[in-house]
């Protein structure tokens, strides 16, 4: 990757920061989004910006990228004052942003996406497609992005799309990129490839502002960290000098007892002896082959694995979303009719789906409606939904899950990410399930909410039910009594309590004792990405 790139000229010798924002304030109506905030990013620096949801990170990003003018404060790029808001080209030559939401247009080719709105020199000049493709290939090669310029952007993987966005951002000549939660939709392997790329770019003198909820990533990638809390700057320090606990304290503003996500001590042995969930010889198309597992009452089982490992498919199959080719699923001795969600619900399976935006929430509807979607039959006789009853129901769930919302009638889209996820969990719990299946339950939520959600899942198990957490997040898996690791559709390892991070990661990556075929395809996949 790095060897294909030529180091561009940049002012690494000068101490002038690529970005320097001081005294930035911004309010929306009554809400103060930023209060006298500041940030300074040096050339070639990997700078992390962390903070809980609502700390003002997104507002800072829109100020830094010229989408919003701050109410007060000054903003300088490489010593020069920031361009006027609206002068998009000027902004883009100073700062680039890879947003949480993809800004790739799926129907167009990669080449066209790279040169969108500058395909030709003038508005009336015809586009020379051959030339455009050549330039796109050069650009992709310059930054070592192994993507076909003629491919349809919609066919790319999330990871490839991000690389294309980064290449596009850099092609405007900026040496400063803001990455807004770039790892949220990547699996562990994709994240490590992204980080390799970012390190290579850093060696070329590109500076980053890296926004993430995952403190592990901050420690892995960044040199400096800035913490925001309640719309204000709290501290900026070298990552190496700031301990994990101190960082979490800075984010939450309160001292923590232990590690951030190390929730209740796993009980080790379940309270009940019987298996609540049993999966036997399950074979799914594109998912798994002859997979068996069981979860006892009172147990939290972790099902780990990278994106292509099939663990998510297995979880969705348990919830009745996929038809099985072979094998069976039983919940408390009662077989679940494969491929039928009502049957899974009736058997007592509650699902926290992988993507809350796509599968979890009806965005414009209220918290109450979203939370009670699975239990409408309990809300009134003969298919009616009585407002009183559903309101009471929702209120109970809001209290149970500590959902921060102005009221049960607030549209769910107005909540922060962590609270939206709580609504999704609340809905899964509303049916009082025997088995709670949670896929990446803490995806994109802040530290506090993460702790809370994992603790809530633990409480489900403590009540004599079973819980299955499907994730590749080590923090999620630490909350489990037992962890099964899947690799390419098979369970390749099982860990009791007290496992080491490296062991589980190695198993998820298929390094430890992986079957031969899987190892081969793994190395092929690695080749693709030029490592």
């Amino acid at each position, binding site marked *: 990757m790095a060897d294909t790139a030529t180091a561009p000229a940049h002012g690494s010798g000068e101490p002038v920061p690529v970005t320097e924002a001081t005294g930035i304030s911004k309010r929306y109506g009554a809400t103060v989004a930023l209060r006298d905030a500041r940030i300074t990013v040096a050339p070639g620096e990997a700078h992390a910006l962390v903070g809980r949801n609502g700390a003002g990170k997104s507002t800072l990003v829109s100020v830094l990228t010229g989408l919003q003018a701050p109410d007060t404060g000054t903003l300088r790029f490489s010593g020069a004052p920031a361009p006027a808001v609206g002068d998009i080209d000027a902004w883009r030559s100073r700062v680039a942003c890879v947003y949480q939401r993809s800004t790739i247009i799926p129907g167009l080719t990669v080449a066209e996406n790279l040169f969108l709105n500058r395909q030709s020199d003038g508005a009336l000049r015809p586009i020379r497609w051959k030339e455009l493709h050549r330039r796109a290939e050069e650009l992709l090669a310059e930054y070592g992005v192994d*993507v076909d310029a003629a491919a349809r952007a919609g066919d790319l993987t999330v990871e490839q799309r991000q690389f294309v966005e980064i290449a596009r951002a850099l092609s405007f000549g900026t040496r400063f990129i803001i990455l807004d939660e770039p790892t949220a939709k990547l699996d562990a392997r994709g994240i490590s490839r992204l980080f390799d790329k970012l390190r290579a770019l850093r060696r070329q003198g590109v500076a980053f502002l890296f926004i993430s909820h995952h403190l592990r990533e901050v420690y892995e990638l960044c040199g400096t960290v800035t913490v925001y809390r309640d719309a204000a700057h709290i501290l900026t320090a070298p990552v190496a000098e700031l301990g994990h606990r101190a960082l979490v304290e800075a984010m939450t503003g309160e001292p923590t007892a232990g590690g951030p996500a190390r929730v209740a001590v796993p009980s080790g042995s379940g309270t009940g002896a019987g298996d609540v969930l049993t999966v036997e010889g399950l074979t799914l198309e594109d998912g798994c082959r002859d997979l068996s597992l069981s979860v006892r009452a009172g147990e939290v089982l972790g099902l780990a694995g990278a994106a292509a490992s099939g663990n998510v498919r297995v979880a969705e199959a348990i919830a009745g979303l996929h038809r099985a080719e072979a094998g069976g699923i039983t919940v408390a001795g009662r077989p679940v009719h494969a491929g039928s969600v009502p049957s899974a619900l009736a058997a007592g399976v509650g699902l926290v789906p992988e993507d809350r935006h796509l599968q979890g929430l009806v965005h414009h509807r209220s918290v109450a409606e979203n939370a009670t979607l699975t239990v409408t039959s309990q809300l009134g006789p003969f298919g009616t939904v009585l407002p009183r009853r559903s309101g009471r129901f929702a209120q109970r769930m809001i209290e149970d899950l500590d959902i921060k919302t102005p009221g049960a009638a607030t549209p769910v889209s107005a909540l922060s990410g962590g609270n939206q996820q709580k609504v999704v969990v609340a809905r899964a719990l509303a049916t009082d399930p025997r088995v709670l299946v949670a896929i990446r339950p803490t995806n994109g939520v802040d530290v506090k909410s993460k702790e809370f959600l994992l603790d809530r899942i633990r409480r489900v198990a403590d009540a004599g039910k079973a819980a299955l957490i499907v994730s590749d997040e080590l923090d999620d898996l630490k909350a489990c009594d037992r962890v099964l690791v899947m690799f390419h559709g098979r369970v390749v390892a099982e860990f009791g309590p007290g496992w080491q991070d490296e062991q589980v990661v190695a198993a998820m990556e298929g390094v430890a004792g992986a079957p031969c075929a899987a190892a081969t395809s793994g190395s092929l996949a690695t080749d693709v990405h030029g490592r």
Partner: protein
Amino acid sequence: MSSTTDVTESAAAGTGRAAAAEDARRGLGLGPGLGRFRELSLVPVILALGLIGFIVSPAFLTADNLIGVAQQSTELSLLVLATAFILIAGRMDLSLESTIGVAPVIAVWLVLPTSGARFTGLGLLPEWTAVPLCLLVGVVIGAVNGFLILRLRLNGFIVTLGMLTMLRGLQVALSEGQSIVELPSSFTYLGRASWLGVPAAIWICLALFTLGGSALAWLRHGRALYAIGGNAEAARTAGIRVDRIVWAVLILGSLLAAFAGILYSGHYGSVSATQGNGWIFQVFAATVIGGVSLNGGKGSVFGALTGVLTLQLVVNVMTLAGVPPLWNQFLNGAIIIVALVISRFASGEKQE
């Protein structure tokens, strides 16, 4: 299985460069590579219809018949061109079918003398201004739609539905529900004239489709329509002036509809009170079976043209085969559904 997925993925990516090189050799100068096959998916259907036509009637494959079909397609195809632009940009304009009628009526109403004919106008302007006035009315209608949709942020579907009804009503009120037959000669010229033995309307349509297709394929602003229809937010962050371009497209669409009104009035020598009535369904059907996505960002002008031709050929072949015209409506509907199914499987893409 995931291991095989990985292998194919890596194979695909591995051959990516080779494929790109191959693409370059084949000449991507032909335009943006993808969707090339999608827009050709109706060509076999048209050929099959031609073959059926040839079998059922010797009159089918004559210059007169084919030119007749083409001439009858002209007005509809201009609306389809307009709709293709608007749909690709991710919008809808239902009022086009009323614009094709009301624009000529307003223009004629402004120029015709106050007395002496069955239809009395205002006689405000000289007769030669009828054509420019008609086009101007189109521009105004598009601009008003744009204002309501983009400035006031009203729902485009309902706004243009209201506009459709309102403009139809205006036409009926102005023309007192009757056809206007006393048209200025400048107004009827284009619809009647013949250049090189072929109706002028056909030449004009071909030229407009070529221009439109080229603009979409080779101009930045044309490509911007795909970007806006595909992901408006992304287009905005790329520096595309989304609202301005959508507004321009809405105006262009209404302008094309007004122009179609001139051709239609000239062709039949009158402005009928029901001119364009109910066309919007056919227009949308032709555009969509031609491969333009209702969700925006996909499709081409050429594909839309094949959509119109398919619909018109079906009617022509059926007429020649002696199927009673009373069955036309039924067949039109059936062919829309059949064509959709064909293009769904020819392209392999889901339409939802």
